[in-house]
């Protein structure tokens, strides 16, 4: 890994120069009390005061709605067109946990049968993480094997060293390319211990105890107890950086149509509802169990990793105040 520094007051110039190369830069911007990744016209629109963005950068690779293809019918002759994704993007300011999530997401979509759209987007996007200096009650990255110092899944990782400069870890070739494009902005440096600059997120549960425990409580009432409060909205899944379920929708009229891929959520009553009317996950507690099992058991079985990165978004948005941390602790203690 290479290490660089960037003067903090050079950041605007960095973005301007990237934009000049024709790339789109997405950075955290405030809308109301929430922070979103968005394009910006001037540097002062960027918000640096956030623990976590409302939505993860998942939507850059896996948008909440995307076109798979369109077709036209010209008096009986059908023609199909697939989207071409050429737009190059730089995402700045994601948290290290989101990088871990992107790594998982790419593993999910690109192993075995790679998803072309996601592959194209990944190739065209450079992710710059900004290591956390603060955290809140809902952050639990350190409980799920990650930390604010994590660089996995980021192309570049920036750490504000508190001395007017960013410590830049160049994690991937893509990151290297971006740094190399602006040699006058970045200075070489050696590996620095950044940990004391970062948020100290407490560990809330022992993952190594939890993971083997989870399948043993499958048939217990614990899921009902935990999920009675769940009102069945899809917020947790939609803000989750690793949730990858989707639904395919066709929008068409007699003359033309488009096939769309949209996010889906395991909390919805229609999730896995069969055409017959039967649903193997008939009630909310079944769906909740599936959610937790997926994150901490099925993905371990199928992909050899848990699929929760401790970003805490699901806890922050839950209308009923459900906390995955508390629920996992209760499983651990069960």
């Amino acid at each position, binding site marked *: 890994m290479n290490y660089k520094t960037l003067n903090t007051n050079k950041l605007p110039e960095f973005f301007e120069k990237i934009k000049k190369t024709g790339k789109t830069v*997405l950075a955290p911007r405030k809308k109301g009390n929430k922070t*979103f990744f968005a394009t910006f016209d001037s540097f002062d629109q960027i918000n640096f005061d956030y623990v976590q963005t409302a939505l993860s950068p998942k*939507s850059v690779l896996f*948008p909440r*709605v*995307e*076109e798979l293809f369109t077709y036209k019918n010209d008096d009986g002759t059908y023609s199909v067109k697939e989207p071409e994704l050429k737009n190059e*993007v730089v995402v700045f300011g994601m948290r290290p946990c989101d990088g871990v999530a992107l790594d998982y997401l790419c593993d999910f979509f690109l192993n075995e049968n790679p998803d072309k759209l996601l592959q194209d987007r990944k190739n065209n996007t450079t992710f710059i993480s900004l290591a956390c200096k603060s955290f809140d009650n809902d952050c639990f990255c350190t409980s799920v094997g990650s930390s604010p110092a994590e660089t996995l899944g980021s192309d570049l990782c920036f750490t504000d060293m508190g001395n007017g400069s960013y410590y830049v870890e160049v994690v991937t070739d893509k990151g290297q390319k971006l740094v190399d494009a602006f040699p006058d902005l970045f200075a070489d440096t050696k590996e620095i211990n950044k940990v004391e600059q970062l948020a100290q997120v407490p560990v809330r549960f022992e993952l190594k105890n939890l993971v083997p425990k989870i399948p043993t409580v499958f048939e217990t009432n614990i899921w009902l107890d935990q999920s009675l409060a769940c009102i069945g909205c899809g917020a947790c899944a939609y803000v989750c950086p690793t949730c990858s379920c989707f639904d395919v929708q066709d929008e068409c009229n007699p003359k033309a149509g488009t096939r769309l891929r949209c996010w889906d959520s395991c909390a919805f009553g229609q999730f896995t509802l069969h055409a017959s009317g039967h649903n193997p996950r008939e009630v909310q507690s079944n769906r909740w169990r599936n959610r937790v099992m997926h994150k901490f058991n099925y993905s371990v079985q199928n992909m050899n990793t848990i699929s929760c990165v401790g970003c805490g978004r699901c806890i922050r948005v839950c209308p009923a105040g459900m906390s995955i941390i508390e629920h996992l602790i209760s499983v651990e203690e069960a």
Partner: protein
Amino acid sequence: MSNFEPKIIAFVCNWCTYAGADLAGTSRIKYAPNVRIVRFPCTGRIDFMLLLKALQTGADGIIVSGCHPADCHYTAGNYHARRRWIIFKSLLDFVGFDTGRITFSWVSAAEGAKWAQIVNETVDKIRDLGPYTDYSNLNKLGVGTITEVLNARTA
């Protein structure tokens, strides 16, 4: 814009306005050809979602027309419809739709001339207003984009 010909969809009830439009025909009253009639049993049957769908497919103007109060073939469908339109119009106004493009009218089976007049006036009005693309353009926005739209033109 000078060549702009408005596309008008008319949601009409079978018993009064549809018959009124028939009467305009048998009376050979000429009116603008921009209107397309879709027949319903009663104004009470007209789902507000259909008005949105019409705007989505590219209608520049909409006419909703049924029996005069007390004339409803089903006694009260038009009264229920009237309440629905009051609420719906209030919502569309609040969200910023151009509700001036929606004409609500009562046209009886005897009012062929009124039907022709409603159509002509609506077409003239929409011709002045120009194409309505606020809503139909939404088809395009958002799909395949990678960012959240943040116009920041907020109130």
